[in-house]
């Protein structure tokens, strides 16, 4: 009846018993959830009928919706090298929370797709991390130019007065390696590293949401002339990726981890007939 607590190598994660969602890391309240924005459909005849497409992220409404099916079960795997908590949502959607020995971050391996479109609605999936105790006042940081961290402020631009008419899409920014939110008074910080270029925003207090996968059924009339509906193997595209999550206050750790993530070792394999000693 109680929430599920998993501890290994000095880190602990707590999952909600009802929903299976991550709700706590150590003593910090940190939630994570997969959600989706239903895509705007339209014929592009006027601005208000502009469809969400390859170029344009245009959700129909401002709220991200929960997946139709919540997590059905959690599987735990313990061991001397890694400990995993697998969150099963349906046959083709799952998340694996992974703790590594001698590492301070939490790896979140996500597997998603094909995105269902039987209801005739395109969908744009996000992974949202929320640390409610971090009061960031709508400010978040991204490394959008791949070099320095840039401060982003909801509904605000640094060099001109902006009238944001798309409250969700108008606050998404590109991120190449990591983004963070910070509470200036307590100096507490939540950092999320991404393994590929994505879009990110902080629409709720203390949150970071990354767009991880999308499947759309309409062209947005910006030139490509077809919907972003990839049908590899006769079905929609499946995707797998990972985020590294850290709730440490250290300023330098994120850049160090980002280098490790972007330049992870190159692996090669060779069949051999030599014994270990002979090879040595």
């Amino acid at each position, binding site marked *: 009846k109680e929430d599920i607590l998993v501890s290994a190598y000095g880190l602990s994660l707590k999952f909600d018993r009802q929903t299976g969602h991550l709700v706590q890391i150590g003593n910090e309240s940190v939630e994570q959830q997969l959600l989706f924005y239903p895509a705007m459909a339209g014929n592009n005849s006027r601005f208000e009928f502009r469809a969400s497409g390859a170029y344009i992220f245009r959700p129909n409404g401002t709220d991200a919706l929960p997946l139709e099916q919540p997590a059905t079960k959690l*599987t735990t795997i313990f061991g001397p090298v890694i400990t995993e908590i697998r969150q099963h949502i349906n046959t083709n959607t799952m998340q694996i929370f992974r703790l590594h020995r001698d590492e301070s971050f939490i790896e979140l391996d996500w597997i998603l797709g094909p995105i269902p479109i039987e209801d005739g609605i395109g969908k744009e999936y996000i992974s949202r991390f929320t640390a409610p105790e971090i009061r960031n006042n709508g400010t978040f940081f991204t490394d959008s130019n791949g070099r320095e961290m840039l401060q982003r402020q909801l509904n605000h631009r640094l060099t001109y007065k902006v009238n944001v008419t798309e409250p969700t899409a108008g606050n998404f920014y590109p991120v190449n390696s990591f983004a963070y939110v910070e509470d200036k008074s307590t100096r507490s910080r939540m950092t999320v590293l991404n393994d590929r270029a994505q879009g990110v925003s902080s629409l709720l207090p203390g949150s970071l949401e990354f767009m991880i996968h999308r499947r759309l059924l309409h062209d947005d009339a910006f030139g490509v002339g077809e919907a972003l509906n990839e049908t590899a193997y006769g079905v929609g595209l499946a995707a*797998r990726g990972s985020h590294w999550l850290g709730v440490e206050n250290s300023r330098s750790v994120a850049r160090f981890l980002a*280098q490790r993530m972007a330049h992870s070792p190159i692996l090669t394999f060779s*069949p051999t007939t030599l014994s270990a000693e002979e090879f040595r």
Partner: protein
Amino acid sequence: SNVLNQFQRSQAIAQHHDAVTGTAKQHVNNDYIVRLDQGIRGCSGVFSESFNHLLSLNGSTLNQEYCAMLNISQCQTTEQNSPFIVTLYNPLAFRSSHTVRIPVTDGSYAITDHEGRLVASQMVPIAEAVLLLPGRNSNATNELIFRAEDLPPLGLRSYHVKTPEGKPGKRMLRSRPKTIQLPN
């Protein structure tokens, strides 16, 4: 080298903004992928040669195979061979450690490092959603996981992996998943 030129050319073409952002037409995108794949495959020989040179194998050579499908836990070499060598190249200019995941069929394995020491390893079943990924063509049902510690900067380190005869590898732990059903 022709193969290097071909790879450079494929990479240069894929720097078009439509290739970077995914806003090309699907058949154009498919073409970008084919070109990159041809470039990578063409360079595998160069890769193998340079690795063998750096590993100083004293005349003997190993055919270094690069598994492009590791992201979906698929690798023909590790699934079909024992023993095999795993070599890691650390592209960072500082020492670094890395958790290695190798798709394998069921069994037990012993991993030996460059100093002849057995390395602690763990066998975990591949997640169901990965096994069901469209297009996955693999017999691997498990992943062999170990920690490659202290990789030298801009350097290589090799590990010998084999299925031990008789007793299973002493330092390999087979993780048993435990399932918790949620009330929903």
